[in-house]
């Protein structure tokens, strides 16, 4: 990794939450909201940070050493307010927001609740909607290998291997297990038992130009949801990628990065 990533802590929700933000790059601000497995600075964020200042906050409770951070946030409404506070603390009036999976749902909630707080929106395989005929997989009740099977285009490929890797050092392995499990516990607070909490009624409020990114082979959140989002967001378009499942930004790193960067620059 060549990117120099710095860290910052800010206070939100009357000081009850104290999220950590990883920051890198220079240029117009982009806020990146991570998915259920927790924040990992990856090649996609490296790519974004070449033209942007990337602010990647950790969702409440998911920062190592601060597991009780989740206690400040009771529900989705608190979570959205938490992010407005966080934007205020970072001096971001109306940044571009990129969200993956659970982070995509949160990004959409932020942009729908107060449309003035998002200049552009990129939703990568977001959860947040529900169709009985193509249900979202209940990944929080599945074993890691079951999740890998549906989340990756190639569950045995290098991307899957890298994302699911267990560190050799025992202490690092413990920390990885703790971080990913507790990240799912904390993000699961807003997704249990199904990740559909009424977003469909709010999406119409989004004003930001919106790019919806999906992997054609996503079996965790099937690609049919791309159109469900697009139909409800006025200024939106869909871009789907082949040989990619639930993590298209890693499985098709170059193509997705290029598309996202062009969209953000345009």
């Amino acid at each position, binding site marked *: 990794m060549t990117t120099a990533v710095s860290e910052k802590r800010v206070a939100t929700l009357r000081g009850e939450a104290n999220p950590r933000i990883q920051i890198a790059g220079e240029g117009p601000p982009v806020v990146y909201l991570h998915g259920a497995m927790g924040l990992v600075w990856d090649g996609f964020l490296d790519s974004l940070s070449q033209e942007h200042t990337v602010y990647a906050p950790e969702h409440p409770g998911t920062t190592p050493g601060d597991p009780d951070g989740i206690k400040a946030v009771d529900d989705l409404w608190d979570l959205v307010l938490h992010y407005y506070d966080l934007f205020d603390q970072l001096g971001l009036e109306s940044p571009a927001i990129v969200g993956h999976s659970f982070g995509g749902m949160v990004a959409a909630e932020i942009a729908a609740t107060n449309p003035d707080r998002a200049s552009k929106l990129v939703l990568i395989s977001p959860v947040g909607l529900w169709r009985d005929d193509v249900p979202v997989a209940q990944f929080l009740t599945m074993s890691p290998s079951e999740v890998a099977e549906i989340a990756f285009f190639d569950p045995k490929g290098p991307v899957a291997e890298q994302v699911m890797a267990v560190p050799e050092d025992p202490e690092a392995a413990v920390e990885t297990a703790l971080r990913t499990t*507790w990240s*799912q*516990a904390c993000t699961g607070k807003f997704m249990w*038992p199904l990740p559909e909490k009424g977003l469909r009624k709010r999406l119409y409020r989004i004003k930001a130009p919106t790019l919806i990114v999906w992997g054609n082979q996503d079996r965790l959140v099937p690609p049919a949801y791309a159109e469900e989002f697009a139909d409800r967001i006025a200024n939106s378009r869909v871009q789907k990628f082949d040989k990619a499942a639930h993590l298209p930004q890693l499985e098709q790193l170059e193509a997705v990065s290029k598309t996202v960067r062009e969209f953000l620059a345009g």
Partner: protein
Amino acid sequence: MQVSMFHLMPHRELPDDFEQRYSSVWVDPPWWELADARRVGQYYNWTLDELTYAAKMGLDGVCVNEHHQNAYGFMPGPNLMGAALARATNDLNTAIVQMGSTLPTTNPPIRVAEEYAMLDCISGGRLVAGMPLGSPMDANQVYGITPIEQRERYYEAHDLILKAWQSREMFAWNGKYQQLGKVNLWPRPIQQPYPPVWVPGTGSYSTWEFSARHDHCYCYLSYFGAQAALQVMNGFWSFVEDYGLKKNPYRAGFLQLVAVSETDERAELDYAEHVKYFYNKCLHIPPHYFGPPGHQDYRSLEKGIRSGFANKMQEELGRLKQYSYRDFVDNQFVIAGSPATVREQLRQAAKDLRVGNLMVLLHIGSMPHHLTIKNISMFATEVLPYLRDLWDDEGWENEWFPERLRMIRQPAAAGS
């Protein structure tokens, strides 16, 4: 010592290849392939008959519990069973031990307070009010409770129930999970200020702390037997001492599988297949079902991962499938054998664990009705009388048993 019969009400006739054909006994076994409603009606009636028989034979209590969507033990409404048992035992001195209604999944939780009060009224003050947190399969997967909120919901429901039982005035409850404008419970329990509360647990520190803080009875429910329980119960008793409470053995409950026959050899003939059925089929549960993220609080999760406990549990569950009947008996997962064997082992186990409220699972897995009756009968006549005086020399009172039953030493059943 007080000894109660526990019953899970399992499916008694799962196919031989159940564990090969299906991924889990819990949450997702297909009803239409595996069960028949009329036959299940027979199971429920046998269960009620067996528990009623145990009461007539002099067991001190009868225990039922709540689970959902499984073939392991499916009494989704434990108080329906409790009501039938309370009515059927009205001329007896048997405690109705509900282990019980699951607090975080009963909404609003005053429903638990109401139904338990009904049971206490119907039974003339013989209720033991079990207050389980709920298994992750039941509470999180089946009943949709957000794992990270489960314990908070439990604590709030507990406080609400205790207040609803005791308050002289109507009150408003402005909780995080429950808002009720006018709480004014009808009926109230006979037992004052409230029925004894038993808290089932699996060895976690937070449940010990909770039980101690409220002066409830802590019940260690494990299927891994008396020997494996020793470490947990030693931990519990040293916790109790550090907490500044008296080491009254009745402060603790323990569940043990028990199977009695004429001889040790005969016990193997009678019970081996049912014990194996229980461990191989009734506990056929994917390990990750026990740990949806957030079901454990962060400290317990960290402790579990660091100690390797989570992995050990997985290995242990895997190993059980290879166990023979002798392995289960030698390791005291089941205390089984002749009356003399069971008597001696059970008395020693209860003594080692310092348990005053013993629960015995006398129906195990696929055990048919007639064999269950035999087990109950032999246990009641040839084992139970030798257990009762276990704690007498220390002079403790069972403060966690219905008051009107505490001082009654049940007469030895006919035939002893």
